[in-house]
């Protein structure tokens, strides 16, 4: 464990110096995420000009939900996004060899080697936004429920990364440099919508097979409910467990199939 922490410390150091090489891009990435956050808030605020409730939530609750997925997104962008971006390219160009020969878990190396320093600043902003929109609820909700909500969002960021990997791992077989990233980017917008709008088969689908609703919507629901906490925890555990097993199996099978394009 200590070896991995030390290794991660070096990853952070290297990422910081790399980020400062492109100063305009560094600051523009911060601006880019701020624009993304604003668009999400404007989107729901425009919708609430035409309705008072959406999926059973009023505008105040919806703003907290938006702040929640922004927080999970910022955490994902900081820790995982750059790594998952490079993953299919590494397979396509045969660069995975480099990680396979290291005396540490290659899955850890691929997932954590680069930290986005600029997104870390956005994570601070997103934390502030989340804190701001939590204010109306902070007095009515027990502290343990708020702490669990934050932990569930952090877990949501990791879950987001793992779902993304399900769409990227097929590159072991297709050989392309993007995998099914385009489908993922279309599907991941489910994260930006409250789970309450979905019904029937697709509701179950987005809570189990592709549990995008577990990333921010379910944690937000967890915060608002007084009686369903246990069932929400159980659903998140089952939904995430399915994803982790699928990723594990695809990774193992993929490595067996890996032919190393450049060697």
């Amino acid at each position, binding site marked *: 464990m200590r070896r991995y922490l030390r290794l991660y410390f070096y990853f952070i150091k290297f990422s910081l110096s790399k980020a400062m090489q492109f100063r305009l891009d560094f600051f523009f990435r911060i601006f880019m995420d701020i624009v993304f956050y604003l*668009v999400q808030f404007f989107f729901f605020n425009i919708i609430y000009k035409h309705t008072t409730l959406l999926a059973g939530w009023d505008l105040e609750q919806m703003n907290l939900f938006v702040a929640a997925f922004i927080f999970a997104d910022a955490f994902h962008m900081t820790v995982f996004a750059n790594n998952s971006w490079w993953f299919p390219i590494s397979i396509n160009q045969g660069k995975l060899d480099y990680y396979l020969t290291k005396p540490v878990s290659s899955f850890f190396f691929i997932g954590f080697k680069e930290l986005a320093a600029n997104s870390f600043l956005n994570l601070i902003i997103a934390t502030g936004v989340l804190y701001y929109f939590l204010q109306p609820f902070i007095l009515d909700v027990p502290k343990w429920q708020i702490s669990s909500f934050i932990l569930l969002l952090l877990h949501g960021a990791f879950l987001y990364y793992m779902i993304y990997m399900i769409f990227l791992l097929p590159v072991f077989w297709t050989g392309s440099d993007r995998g*099914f990233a385009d489908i993922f980017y279309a599907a991941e917008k489910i994260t930006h919508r409250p789970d309450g709008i*979905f019904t029937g088969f697709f509701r179950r689908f987005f809570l189990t097979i592709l549990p995008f609703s577990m990333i921010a919507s379910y944690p937000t629901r967890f915060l608002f409910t007084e009686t369903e906490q246990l069932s929400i925890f159980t659903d998140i555990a089952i939904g995430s467990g399915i994803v982790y097993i699928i990723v594990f199996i695809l990774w193992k099978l993929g490595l067996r199939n890996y032919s190393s394009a450049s060697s």
Partner: protein
Amino acid sequence: MMELRRRVAYRSDFWINFFGQTFFSLIIAYYLWSSIFKTTGKTEMNGFTMQSMIFYYLVAPLVFRIQQGLGIGFISRDIYEGSLNKYLLYPVEFFKFKLSTYLATSFFFATQLFVILGVYQIFFYDENIFQFHLLNIIFFLLALLGSTLIYFYLSVIFESLAFWYDNVWSVGVVLRFATSFLGGALIPLTFFPIGVQSLLNMTPFPYLIHFPVAVLTKGLPATELLSSFGIMIFWICIFYAVAKLVWNKGSYSYSGVGI
């Protein structure tokens, strides 16, 4: 032809991505707007019924995809990696070469849109939502060409910043976010407050997504068509001039990595 061949090099990826994107866009739009229509108890909102809303979300993302052409980095990558050098040896101007490959890619995505329209016409035909009128299709194609040219020259301006700042990927993403929201891909512009709509009409954004979709679905009156195409040409000329200016200035700063 080269660009088209490159696009279909990974055929399974291409078609799975295409159908996957369309499928998820529709599912999200369907459930979101079903919930809104159900909560409000209305059958029509800001000129949209539930059916016409679904059709809007079927077409708008594809129109948005068409004008994206080669995507982010189609010039900045050449500048940063030094592969711009090779274009100096080509017997064709760089701008023209890039524009033709950009339009070829857009054309390819346009064929996807027409496949979808064909499927819609065969299986879900509803004359109140969409009718295959030749004149509408011609105006729609012209609107698509206009919006693609606006986006191309706008992108060239931002991509050319790579002459000074190397990596400008995030600038392209900001442009994409802005276009998606202010152009009407995320939510139809008729849902925006009236004041905001009037402000937006002074920008090129409504002409990127909202206008082509309106031409296809509503068949706008001749006066509106004429004025909108006039405004489109105005924006194309403005962005073309600025793009040329920035490009010419930037090319003096080009260090030609790898020469």
